[in-house]
């Protein structure tokens, strides 16, 4: 329940905001919500697998956010804005 609400909030933020930093934050929220769902399922059935899946999600989030923030920096050097719509010069 809570995981669903958090995931939907993150998705709504991802769809509405155009700032790259906010986009990354909303991805974090969604990953966190899915981890919460895993841990809740693991606690419901008394298994450790949910927590292990959360550990893997955590690792992936750390790697993703480091690469994503490096990309944001690179983008900011190229365009002096953080608007994701400015990165549209790759259209064919």
């Amino acid at each position, binding site marked *: 329940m*809570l995981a669903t*609400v*958090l995931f939907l*909030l*993150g998705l*709504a*933020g991802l769809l*509405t*905001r155009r*700032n790259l*930093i*906010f986009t*990354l*934050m*909303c991805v*974090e*929220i969604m990953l*966190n919500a899915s981890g*919460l769902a895993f*841990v*809740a399922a*693991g*606690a*419901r059935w*008394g298994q*450790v*697998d*949910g*927590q*292990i899946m*959360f*550990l*893997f999600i*955590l*690792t*992936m*989030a*750390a*790697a*993703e*956010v*480091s*690469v994503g*923030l*490096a*990309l*944001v*920096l*690179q983008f*900011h*050097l190229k365009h002096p804005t*953080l608007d994701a719509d400015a990165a549209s010069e790759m259209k064919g």
Partner: protein
Amino acid sequence: MLAIFYISSAVAVLATLMTITRRNAIHALLYLIVSLLAIAIDFYLMGAPFVAALELIIYAGAIMVLFVFVVMMLNIGEQASETEREWLRPRSWVGPGLLAVVLLVEVASLLSLRGTGERTGADVIASKQVGIALFGPYVIGVELSSLLLTAGLVGAYHLGRKVASKEGEIRDIDTAGSRAVARDSTVSAGPGRTSHAA
């Protein structure tokens, strides 16, 4: 216990809602940290204290430090003094502060309730079981995540370095910052590895 669970869930949802509606990135980050703290309390109440500690250390510690670092690097020199004056106004920090005080009251009540032995109903899965399962049937996942962390580290370092060779000394400050980000990603990778070792 159930009441504490629902209160911290409400705090998490409220803080997330405030996160995606703020215009200032630092304010959104403050609310996001409060949301992560509330979710950590939820993890503890669901019988996963190890995961709660990891959530605090890695999410609210390392990843949020990365975000704050990048945000502060991006709008350096623009309106720094104006921003400084803005932060000292109570309007900007009283909201996350109030939510954090709610969480603090919850933790205090949890600590005081602990002597009575009352639990939330879910069985506590200790970190020993997690470690045994992690290095038993899931050892290939540990290897794969170490590979992923190495790839993330190399990728962040490469993305930070490419500016130096292309743009020269003008971007020197910025590359120093990106290198610090790459170094910080090793910091956030460090607890991940030790968590697997724990």
